[in-house]
């Protein structure tokens, strides 16, 4: 009975659109991959990794595969250690810079927009189509155009990363804000909470889990776009190095750059998983 009443009265703006926006961008499942627990499990994970990498190495040695066809893991490792300073550090820093600037711009706009839409749900129908278009269009496609506007520095890439990550953050955050339970809003109202208090004390913490998912997905899209944009244009960054080393058929170096990009991606995933565990691990 209480829920029925709620639907008709007090806070009815969270109810309607929950299913529209969730869609494909709702990747909460990605946060729930179980982590390894205990020394035994960690040992198993490491053993398997050694087995896989060692197996590849062994296979390449046994088949006598030339380096330009497939680089050996050992050669990649040696290059990573030996050439890190001279060859990889500078492009890594450029990519990180692009990524963080883009994410910061994109996510703050996305989060703000999600909050505004939560408080003004009537705007949602107007904005939704553009968000969907931005989510579904690969923003790398815009890089040549952006380069005409912003030149060959990191600006067009930062812009592309912001465009790729922002809508992801926005969609997931908006979904999170909409999940706010009417009962909790009624609770806040019964204690005289202002709109602002309602947002910071109830809506935002309740949505935090989905916001973090939004940041994680947005970051992964952002990294993808950063590296992709570097491959398309501009003379710096890890993406640029990928193109460069493959053109020179320097496959161990190509592999080393790939490993760095993968490590970057895994770090993003790990960081947000830890944040989620720390700040949003409560049971509903």
């Amino acid at each position, binding site marked *: *009975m*209480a829920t029925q*009443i709620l639907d*008709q*009265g*007090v806070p009815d703006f969270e109810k309607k659109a929950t299913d529209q926006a969730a869609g494909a961008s709702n990747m909460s499942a990605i946060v729930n991959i179980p982590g390894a627990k205990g020394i035994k499990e960690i040992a198993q994970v490491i053993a398997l990794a050694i087995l896989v990498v060692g197996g590849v190495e062994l296979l390449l040695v046994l088949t006598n595969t030339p380096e330009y066809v497939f680089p050996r893991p050992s050669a990649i490792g040696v290059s990573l250690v030996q050439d890190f300073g001279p060859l990889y550090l500078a492009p890594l820093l450029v990519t990180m810079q692009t990524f963080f600037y883009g994410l910061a711009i994109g996510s703050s706009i996305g989060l703000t927009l999600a909050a505004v839409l939560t408080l003004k749900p009537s705007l949602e129908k107007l904005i939704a189509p553009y968000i969907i278009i931005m989510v579904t269009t690969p923003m790398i496609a815009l890089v040549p155009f952006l380069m005409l506007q912003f030149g060959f520095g990191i600006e067009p890439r930062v812009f592309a990363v912001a465009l790729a990550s922002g809508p992801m953050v926005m969609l997931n955050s908006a979904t999170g804000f909409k999940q706010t339970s009417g*009962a*909790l809003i*009624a*609770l*806040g*109202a*019964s*204690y*005289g*909470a202002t709109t602002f*208090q309602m947002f910071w*004390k*109830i809506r935002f*913490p*309740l949505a*935090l889990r989905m916001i973090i998912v939004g940041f994680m997905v947005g970051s992964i899209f952002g990294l993808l776009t950063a590296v992709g944009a570097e491959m398309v244009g501009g003379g710096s960054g890890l993406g640029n190095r990928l193109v460069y080393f493959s053109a020179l058929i320097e496959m161990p170096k190509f592999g080393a750059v790939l490993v760095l990009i993968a490590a970057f991606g895994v770090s993003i995933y790990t960081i947000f998983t830890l944040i989620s565990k720390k700040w*949003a691990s*409560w*049971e*509903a």
Partner: protein
Amino acid sequence: MNSGHPATRINIKDLSKSYKTARGSVNAVEGFTEAVKDGEFVCIVGASGCGKTTLLWCLSGLHPQTSGTVEIDGVPMEKPMPDKIGMIFQDANLLPWRTLRQNIELPFEIKKKPVNHQLIKELIEIAGLTGFENSFPGELSGGMRQRGSIVRALAQEPEVLLMDEPFGALDAFTREEMNLLLLKLWHQTKKTIVFVTHSIAEAVFLADRVWVMSPRPGRLQRVVDIDFPRPRTFELQYEPRFLETLRSIRDDVQGAEIGNELANGEVK
């Protein structure tokens, strides 16, 4: 005020509430006039959909009535009065990311007033929650969560406590414990309580007066004075006069309800 005639706390005059639904307008409550005295314990019962919850939400100011007036201490209600009224919901509504103590302190934060640690400590003790202050709601039982929500409301020292089927989701034994706890708290704090329930036995056990409502539109059908002595114990529930009162109210509710929920002996 004269002790023989306690002041009127809540005055309801010709209150109606209608909702607009897809199938047109529904009169949930119509022409409701009654009053609650200071320190009184009123229970509202009625068949499912009789408008008892709607009425309570009108009294809370969360869902303003369509017409008529609600006065608290002579002041017309226009919006929630957090300093006068504490609302207890069917769900405990504890914020899952806050500990029990942080939940109890939430209304203080919202009202921007200093936390009354001494009172909270006492209430927590009476409610049997000592030692669980730093637990998260997910770690507590349903009964404990609801006790926490009662402590949260009482810590604000409201004059009126509005309770919307607060124990409806609890099992029978927990529910009995909660009834006794509530009577104990009521006795100690002298609050005015309006309590909505679908259990007639619960209403008769707790209340000074029971308001029986009839459905569609929700109207006040009958007011039953319950003058069993206090403090009440569960023994009361087996006494003939208790059962007689129960029977007579049940007949009223049954007469008002056409549905077949009652055929199963279940009043909702």
